[in-house]
Structure formats: C-alpha cells, structure tokens
C-alpha cells in the first residue's frame, strides 16, 4: 500500500534528527571564547528545538502553505474596514534596495541620513494629509497609535492639572477603541448612534462632562457613513475640555478631500498598511503613525526624527533623532518602527502625489457606491438590505437579517459560500449594531468587471438558497479546508505541540 502524503503536517512534525538545509562554512576568523561574547547566565542551557528538515522539504512546505492561502494577489478581497487595496509591486523593489533593506537599526544617524530624511519627509506628508503639523512614526499598529493617543491625552491633561476618568466611544467603534481606553486606565462610556447612523448628539451632550478625557471617533464611521454632525461634535467635546481623537481606519475615504485637523481633531492615527499600501492581514508588520496639534506636540513619543538646518550657508540640512523631549510620553517600542513600511508608504505617496491621493479616495467612494447600486439592481436588497439608506463613503454595511428569516441562511453561510466563487468574504457581524452585518469595502483598485461579478455572485447565492438553503449552510466546498469548527477552536484550543 502506498502511504498517503500528509499535507497537514507542521514543519516540526516533518523534522528528522540530523537533517539539514544548510551547512555553515569553516570559521575563517579567530575563534573567541563564548564567555567573552555573552555571559553564561544570558545563554540558554540547551539548544533550541528547531525543526530539522532538508531544503527541498522546507521549500515544499511553505510553497504548499502559500497555495492554500487566499490573498489579495489571488482574488477580490472586499474586507470592510481593512482596506485591502492593491499593493504596487514597485514598492517591493524600492524597499528591497540594499540601502533600505540592509540598514541596521543601530546604524549611527550620520550614516543613515537617507533613511532619516525619508522618515522626516513621510512625517511631513502625513501631517499635510491629516491637517495636523506634528507626526510620530513610532506606533507600529493602529491599536498602538490609539494607545499613544490616549496616553498623549492623559499627559496633556495632567500637565494642566486635570485628572479625568472617562473616554467616550460610539457604539459603532472598532473593538480596539474600548480596549485601548481600558488599557489606558480610563472607563469606557458608549455613545449611541441615531437613526441615520450618526453619533446621537443628544446622547453625546448627556454623557460629555468634565470627567471625560476624550472622544474617539472614526469618520467615516464603521457604517461607511460620514459623520454629518462633526462640527457640532467638535463643539461639544472641546466644550468640556476633552480631546477629539481620530481613528484613521477609514482614512481611505477622505484623503486629499478633507482633513481631520480641519474638522477639529487633536490627534489622528494612520494605518499605513491600509490607506498607504502594505501587504497586511497576515499579522503584520504594520505602522500606526500619529499626527497631533500644536498643544499635544510636547508629549509626542521620543525620540523624534527632526531636520536641522545647516549653520553655514550652502551646506545640506541634516537629520537626527531628538531625545531631548522632557514632557514626552516616552518610547512606544524599540527603535523607530517598521522601516520597510515607511519606505512603501512614502513610495506610494510620491507615486500618486496630492491629486493622485485624492483620486484614490474618490474612486474608493465611487466604487463602493457603484457596487451598492449594482447590488440593488440585482434585486438582493429584499434579503440583504443596506443598513442605512444614505450615500455611502468607501464602504457600506448590509444586514443579512431578512435573509436569515426568509431564506434560512445566516450571514456566515453567505460569507462561506462566497469562497466557492473565488471571492474573499466581506467583514461579517460587525459593526455590532447591525444584525447579521456584512461590511463591504471594494477599494479603489478593483475593476468594474470585478464589482459586477461580486453583485452577480451574491444574487446567485441567494437564488440558490431559495431553492436549497443546505448548500450554503455547508459551504465552502472548494477550499483546502471546509467549514471550520470555530467554536471548538475557541473553547478547547490546542495551543501546544510536542516537538
């Protein structure tokens, strides 16, 4: 009998003692005793248990895994709020240039002037886009940008002798907002949405008092709707002395059209990996820079990348890391952030320029509205109506509740069935205020044909469910793994593996 090839083995299960993919060459420098290089208490007692595999086994293992993945280079990926736009391949070439890729984090700033200049120029560009002059690139994820924002708010208010205890978040907020608030030591107070999907201004007025440190707001919101009451929100929040924080998750809708700083926001975070292109979704790396107003500037993380004008005429300006920031909230991480991300995002901004960024946002909004109209024309709104009947921004939220009631398939079933049609599902079950929610963000980089096909596929799945709901309930059929036991994985996770 022929043994079956087991595609589910991990790299550790493929390990066989003595197998190697690499043999180091003979040492060609003088050998020094280990104790001289690293004191014994810092060294591990036994060698790490790494998998022992040959090079072809490694290549096949990861090649196999890569083929089982659904990624942006495979198909349409309208994952709401994640901005899965195309990542231009040019950026990879630029990030791979030795001057970028081989730069050491401990390089003396004098020998890293190019990199520091790139970071400074990126700061300037982001500041212009946000409408807020001072930028720190240090936070390395949107969530860390949020934490920086809350810590900056605290530092600013404590410096003024204020001790505030609460932070407001709308009921549509990303889960990271309340998590950040809790981590920052504040109490979360939820603000309701009104019937139009905006922040309920009466509820905001009732909850905004002198104990409130900040309102964290995403605009456009996670419903894909622009907060039309933003000016009144700004007056209410600043009226009680709180700061206004802009969650930049949905910045892709407004780049070059309007600016958070002009709306009155004090602190903004960017998701460079969303709005400014960077392969993401696999766990990173990302970048969550922040831009702040004049009054928040003294508290920014340190060190800051700064440009110094030369003292003598004709000499080049130089760039350095400024540690002399006595009011700073301190470091948020080792070194300055994920530099490769900065290179890609800077390349993106330079490639598009200001008119191009604006066009990207306009097209993102146009694509979302086109797709919504196209879904309407397919006649699916009876089963998956749009949650709020308004012009949407870069994304829109549908409710699968009528579909669940009438066709007996849930949003999850529709999402899984989409996979059989080669489409990555939209974000599901978020925001929480929409029942059986489906959040669709097509992005600006998809063609009309792709959007048309998505609408046709959704219509087809609903038609199929009318005839036999069991088909969608057991989907997907064509993926490497079928319906996963998500509840079982969460209830009884297997988190350790014998090596």
């Amino acid at each position: 009998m022929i043994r079956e090839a087991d595609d589910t083995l991990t790299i550790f299960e493929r390990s066989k003692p003595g197998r190697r993919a690499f043999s180091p060459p003979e040492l060609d420098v003088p050998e020094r005793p280990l104790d001289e290089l690293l004191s014994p208490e810092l060294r591990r007692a036994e060698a790490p248990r790494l998998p022992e595999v040959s090079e072809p086994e490694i290549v096949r293992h990861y090649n196999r895994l890569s083929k089982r993945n659904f990624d942006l280079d495979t198909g349409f990926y309208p994952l709401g709020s994640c901005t899965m736009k195309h990542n231009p391949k040019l950026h990879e070439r630029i990030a791979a240039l030795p001057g970028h890729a081989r730069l050491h984090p401990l390089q003396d700033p004098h020998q890293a002037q190019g990199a520091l200049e790139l970071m400074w120029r990126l700061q300037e560009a982001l500041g212009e886009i946000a409408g807020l002059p001072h930028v720190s690139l240090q936070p390395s994820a949107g969530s860390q940008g949020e934490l920086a924002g809350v810590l900056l708010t605290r530092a600013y208010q404590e410096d003024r002798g204020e001790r505030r205890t609460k932070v407001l978040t709308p009921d549509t907020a990303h889960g990271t907002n309340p998590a950040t608030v809790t981590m920052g030591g504040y109490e979360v107070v939820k603000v309701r949405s009104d019937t139009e999907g905006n922040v309920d201004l009466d509820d905001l007025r009732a909850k905004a008092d002198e104990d409130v440190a900040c309102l964290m707001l995403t605009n456009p919101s996670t419903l894909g709707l622009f907060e039309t009451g933003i000016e009144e929100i700004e007056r209410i929040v600043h009226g009680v002395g709180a700061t206004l924080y802009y969650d930049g998750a949905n910045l892709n809708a407004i780049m070059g059209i309007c600016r958070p700083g002009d709306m009155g926001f004090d602190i903004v975070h960017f998701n460079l990996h969303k709005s400014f292109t960077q392969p993401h979704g696999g766990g990173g790396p990302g970048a969550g820079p922040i831009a702040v107003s004049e009054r928040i500037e003294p508290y920014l993380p340190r060190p800051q990348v700064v440009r110094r004008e030369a003292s003598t005429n004709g000499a080049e300006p130089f760039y350095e890391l400024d540690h002399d920031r006595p009011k700073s909230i301190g470091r948020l991480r080792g070194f300055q952030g994920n530099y490769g991300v900065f290179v890609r995002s800077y390349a993106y901004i330079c490639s598009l320029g200001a008119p191009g960024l604006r066009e990207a946002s306009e097209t993102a909004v146009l694509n979302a509205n086109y797709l919504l109209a196209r879904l309407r024309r397919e006649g699916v709104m009876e089963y998956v109506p749009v949650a709020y009947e308004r012009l949407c921004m870069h994304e829109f939220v549908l409710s699968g509740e009528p579909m669940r009631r009438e066709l007996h398939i849930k949003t999850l079933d529709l999402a899984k069935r989409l996979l059989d049609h080669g489409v990555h599902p939209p974000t599901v079950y978020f925001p929480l205020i929409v029942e059986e929610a489906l959040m669709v963000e097509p992005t600006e980089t998809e063609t009309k044909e792709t959007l048309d096909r998505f609408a046709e596929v959704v219509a087809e799945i609903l038609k199929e469910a009318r005839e036999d709901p069991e088909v969608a309930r057991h989907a997907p059929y064509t993926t490497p793994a079928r319906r996963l036991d998500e509840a079982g994985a969460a209830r009884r996770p297997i988190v350790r593996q014998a090596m």
Partner: protein
Amino acid sequence: MADPSYPDDLKYHAEHDWARIEGDSATFGITWYAQDALGEVVFFDPPEVGAEVSKDQAYTEVESVKAVSDVFAPLSGEITAVNDALGDKPETINEDPYGEGWLVKVKLSDPSEVDSLMDASEYQASLD
C-alpha cells in the same frame, strides 16, 4: 436549541436576560433570543461571588464566535453563586439557556424591582 422558547415562570429584561424569582433571591441567565443572536458561546467570564450587581448595568461578559457582549442585570442585589460548570462547557448557555446554562444566583436588594420586568408574552411581543 433549534426552537425559540420563553418559559412562563420567568421574568424578562429588555437586554435579553431572564430572572427566576425564588422569594428574595433570583437566578439570572440569558434568553433563547440572546444566545441565538450571539451564536456559539465560547467563553463565560464568571463574576465574583459577593459582588454587587445593579439593575440595568452590565455585570459580566459572554464571548461568542462573533463578539464579546455585556450581560445586564435584570435586578439589583449581591451575587451568592456563579455557575462554575460553564467554565469548561460554555456551550451549555446555547444548549440549555434556562436550565443548566444559568449564570448567577443573586440575593435581591430590592425585590419590588421585579414589577418593572416583562412576562413571557410581553417579552416575546418586544422581539417582533
């Protein structure tokens, strides 16, 4: 549980919680509608015995494959027991929301609050 049910001997809160009143004590849980909307429950965060709960305020959380949700107290009082068995088998909340899936027992501080809760038919009407 495939079919919705709302037992007549329970009192209901608009945030989809039920209370079984026994003199000046009560048992709390979440309704069939709540567990169905949550989907498969994967984690229950048991509150401390002795903790005070206030009517209409969140006193604990349940996590499903979809989301983490607050659980609201239908009545005020002090927690006298929590359902520890849910730690290993949170799915009991889905399978038997009114029986083995109970969450906490509470010594009521103001039994007259019961008057503000809905009965089964009022609660069911509120779901439509």
